[in-house]
């Protein structure tokens, strides 16, 4: 899957999870830039990503996510 396609799909997931259609998501977006990104929302987000992309992450993998770009790169590997 192309990284641009992944980003577009992630944008939809983020907007649904955080209930905000105006949410701006780029590769550089991290948790500090989105209001309400707490530990429970983090679980909702990861579960939604895993289900939408039909992949599974490990605890170690999600621990290494620092920004949306890291998620995109890993998804590109897992869906290739």
């Amino acid at each position: 899957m192309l990284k641009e396609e992944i980003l577009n799909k992630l944008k939809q997931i983020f907007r649904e999870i955080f209930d905000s259609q105006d949410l701006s998501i780029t590769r550089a977006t991290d948790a500090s830039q989105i209001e309400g990104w707490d530990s429970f929302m983090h679980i909702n987000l990861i579960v939604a990503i895993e289900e939408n992309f039909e992949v599974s992450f490990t605890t170690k993998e999600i621990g290494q996510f620092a920004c949306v770009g890291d998620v995109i790169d890993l998804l590109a590997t897992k869906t290739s």
Partner: protein
Amino acid sequence: MNSLEQVVMPRVGDHYRHEVLISSDMVQAFVKLSGDDSPIHVDEAFAQERGYEGPICHGILLTAFVSRILGTWLPGKESILKSIQMEFRNPAKYPCMVQIEVRVTKVFQSVGMIRLAIEISHQQDEIIARGLAECVVRTSEVAK
């Protein structure tokens, strides 16, 4: 040894079944606790006039026994309830024996979350309610 080190993530297919006798005393206690004293739950004539055999148990009282399973058996004490949905299909006239079963249907290992199917039925296998719960489980694998 920290007890957390002994906790393992449940697996898909793990299940727990529990039987409970729903008694009039339980319903009265729930009325007192919740303040829900709707006559459909406590008034024989009122319930019968509305087509029921007699007063019916509160759906949330039945759901309380789901909480008991989730918190004490599956997944157990290292878990917290994240979400729950229930759909009630048939009334439960009390006193009655009900079976409550939860079954793990999906495990999200990365975030330590499990999804469980819930089924509440009469002994005669008539479905009273079905539902879905999500629990976050703190295991040694997730805590590391």
